[in-house]
C-alpha cells in the first residue's frame, strides 16, 4: 500500500528529499507524474486512466506535505523501509488503508515509474 501523511504533519520537509520516486510534495504544490521518474508523454495508470506525464496535477493537500499515491512504492525496489516514515520526526507517514497493494504490485509500480 502507499504511504499517507496525516494531519499531524508539522511541515518540516524532512521527507521530501528522501523519496526515491519524487512522490512527496509540499502542501498546495502542483505536481507531475514525470517529475523524478522516467515517465514521458501519455501514460496509462493502473486504473486505466490516461494522463500526460508533464501535465500539472492538483495538490492532494493544501495544508500539509502530501504523497501522490500513484507514485509511492513504499520504497520497494530502493530501500528496506519507507524512507519518509524513517525520517519523519513526528511519525506521521503511515500506511494508507485506502491504497492497499501487494509487494508484487508495488514492484510493478516501481518498474512502471522507472522503466
Amino acid at each position: 500500500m502507499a504511504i499517507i501523511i496525516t494531519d499531524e504533519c508539522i511541515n518540516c520537509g524532512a521527507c521530501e528529499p528522501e523519496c526515491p520516486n519524487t512522490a512527496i510534495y509540499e502542501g498546495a504544490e502542483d505536481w507531475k507524474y514525470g517529475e523524478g521518474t522516467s515517465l514521458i508523454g501519455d501514460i496509462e495508470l493502473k486504473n486505466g486512466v490516461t494522463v500526460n506525464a508533464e501535465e500539472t496535477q492538483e495538490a492532494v493537500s493544501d495544508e500539509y506535505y502530501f504523497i501522490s499515491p500513484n507514485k509511492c512504492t513504499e520504497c520497494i525496489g530502493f530501500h528496506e523501509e519507507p524512507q519518509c516514515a524513517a525520517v519523519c520526526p513526528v511519525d506521521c507517514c503511515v500506511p494508507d488503508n485506502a491504497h492497499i497493494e501487494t509487494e508484487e504490485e508495488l514492484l510493478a509500480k516501481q518498474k512502471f515509474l522507472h522503466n
Partner: protein
Amino acid sequence: MQSFRTEIENPIVEKDILELDRKIKLFKEGKIDEERFRSLRLARGVYGQRQFGVQMIRIKLPYGKVTSEQLHRIAGVSDEYSRGRLHITTRQDIQIHHVSLDRTPELWSQLEKDDITLREACGNAVRNITASETAGIDINEPFDVSPYADATFKFFLRNPICQEMGRKFKISFSGTDADTAISFIHDLGFIAKIKTENGVVKKGFKVLLGGGLGSQPRHADVIYDFLEEYVLIATIEGILRVFDRFGERAKRAKARLKFLVKEMGVAAFLELVSAEIHTLKYQTFKVDTTTFEQPVSFQEVTIPAVEIENEVAFQKWKKTNVIKQKQAGLFAIGIKVHLGDFYTPKARLLADLVKKYAANEIRLTLRQNILIRHIREELIPFFYVELEKLGFANAGYNSTADITACPGTDTCNLGISSSTGIAVVLEKVLEEEYPNYLNNKEIAIKISGCMNACGQHNMAHIGFQGMSIKAGDLQVPALQVLIGGGILGDGKGRFSDKLAKIPSKRGPDALRLLLNDIDQNQQREENFLAYYDRQGKTYFYDLLKGLADTTNLEPSDFIDWGHSENYVKAIGVGECAGVVIDLIATLLFESEEKITSAKEALKENQFSDSIYYAYTAFVNTAKALLIAEGVKTNTQAGIITSFQEHFVISNIVELETSFEDLVYQMKHENPTKAFAQKYLIDAKSFYQKIDAHRKTTLSHV
C-alpha cells in the same frame, strides 16, 4: 516607565527602543496586527518561548566578543529581567528566558549602555555575524578576521536593504582552513586567505554561498577562491539585494537563500549580483583594522602565588583546555560550559578575573563554550585555581565529551523531544565509561531537539535529533541517530546520514554500541570518517537497528529524559518566519511609512538608503493591489512582473512606462542625490495613484 528615554546617547538607538515601546502598547491595545507586531519584535531580539506569556531575549554579540563590562551588564540584566541564567548559543549569542514583554524596551536600553544590541538578533534579517573564536590569536591564521566580522555587523545593522527579507540570513568568518566557523552551512561563509601578487601581500577570502542545515541541508557553493578584502562589503550587499528581490516569501519552508541558489543556479545568481553593482553605496570599502591591531595591554598586577593541589588534574586540563596563541608568551583558556548554560554570580567573578589578569575580553564559542584570550604563561596555574573555584575547570574543552545541544523542549516552542536531557546523560556515559574521549578532539557529538538543527546535529560526526514515535495511542520520545558528518576544512564539509529512529531512553545504548564498535574495529591510521566510509551506512544501520524495535517498550520509555511524567508531544509553530501580511490596508499604510523613511534618509544625504526605501514602497504598494485581486505574491521580482501583467498592460493603472522600467530605474542609476530625489517623487506619485484607485474601487463596491 520612560526612565530609559533620557539615558540613551545614540539617537538612532533611542528611536528604535521608543518605537518598540510604542508598538508594544499599540499591540496590547489591539491596535496593530498581531503578526505584524511579531515580525517587529523578532527583529528586536524578542522571541516567543514554550511557556506562555513570557519571552526569550536573544542578545546579539558579534563574533562572540564580550568585555568584562559587557558581561557584568548582561548579568545585571539577566538578574533584573530574567532568572539569572545565561545560555550561550551555537551562533555566539546569549539568550535569557522568561522575560516579560512590557519590560523589553527597558532591558534593551540597559544593554545599550555597554553597546550591546538586540537589533536583528531574530527575524528575517542578517543574524549575528559569527567567527572562529580563535580569530586574532590563532597560530595558523593568515590574518585576524574579527575586524571584518565587526565591519559587516555594523554595515548591515539597520540597513534598509536587509530589514524585511524573505527569510533570515547567516554569515560566518573562519580564521583558518580548519574552518571552525563552519562556512559550508552558512548563507555566506568566508575563510581568510592571503595571496601575494607582484610582491604585495593581499588579504581576502574564500567565499561560500547558499549553505544551510535544517531539515534539508545544503552544502554551500564556492563562489570565489579569493575575493579581495576591499570588495567584501559590496559583495555581501549585492547578494542581499538579490536575495531580497528574488527570494521566496510566501512559502516559508522554501524561503532560505539555499533554495534560491539551487533553483536559479550559482552562475545566474551571481550575474544578478554583478548587475547590482551600480546601485551600491560603496563599490569598495576599506575595513579599518587598526583598533584590532593594538598591542595587548594588561593591568599591572602582582602574580598571586597559588598551589596546585592535584597536579595530574591540572596537567590533564592544561593539555585539553589551554591553547598557545600566535602572540609569543600568551595563551587562551577554554572553559567547557555544560550545555552552554552558566549563571550570573559566576559570570561576574569571571568578568572580574578577566579584567584584572587577562586582557578584558572573552569570546563565546560556536560549541557553546567560553574562550579567555591573552593569558600570560606564568598566570596559567593561577587561572586554573580560580576557574576551578567557579566550576569552570573541567577538562575536555571541544572534545567528544563536550556535547553541543540546543535548548529543545526545555524552552523552545519547536522542540519535539528533550535535547539537553539526553546530552547530560551522554556526557555522563562518556565521563564514566569512556574517559579517553575527553582527549578526543576529532569526534564531535551534537544534539538538536528538532529538525531545524540549531544544535547542528546533522553536520556532526555523531548527531541526535529529537523526534517522537507512535506506540498505539501513546507517543514515545525518540531520537534519530545520525553519523558521518563533519568539517573537512577549506570550505568542505559533510552532512551526516540518518541511520535509525530509536526511543530516547536508548540513546546511551546507541552511543555505547557505536563507541564499542569503533574501539574494536577502527584501524589505527584511520580517522573516524574514514572508518565510517569503509564500513558504510548499512553496516551502522544494522548495528543500531535492534534499538529501533518498538515491540518491546517499557513504561520508562514513555518518559523523556529529565521528566517524571509520560511524554506529551507539544510542538508549536516557528517564530523565525516573517509572516505573510495579507491586509491591504496595512500594506498601503506601510508604503506610506516607507516613503517617509525615504524622505528622512534623503534629508540626511543617505541616497542609497533613500532609494531602497522608495523601492520597497513601490513593491509594497503593488503587492497590496495584487493581493486584492488574489494574485500570488511570492517574490518581489514576481510582484513587479505580475503588476505589469495584471494592471498596466490592461490599462487599469496608467503609467508612462512599464512598471518594470519604473521600478528598476534604480538598477541602472548610480545612487546620486538627483536620482534619489526623482525616484522618491516617482514612488510617491505611484502610491498616490494606487491609493486613489483603491478608494474609487471601494466606493463602487
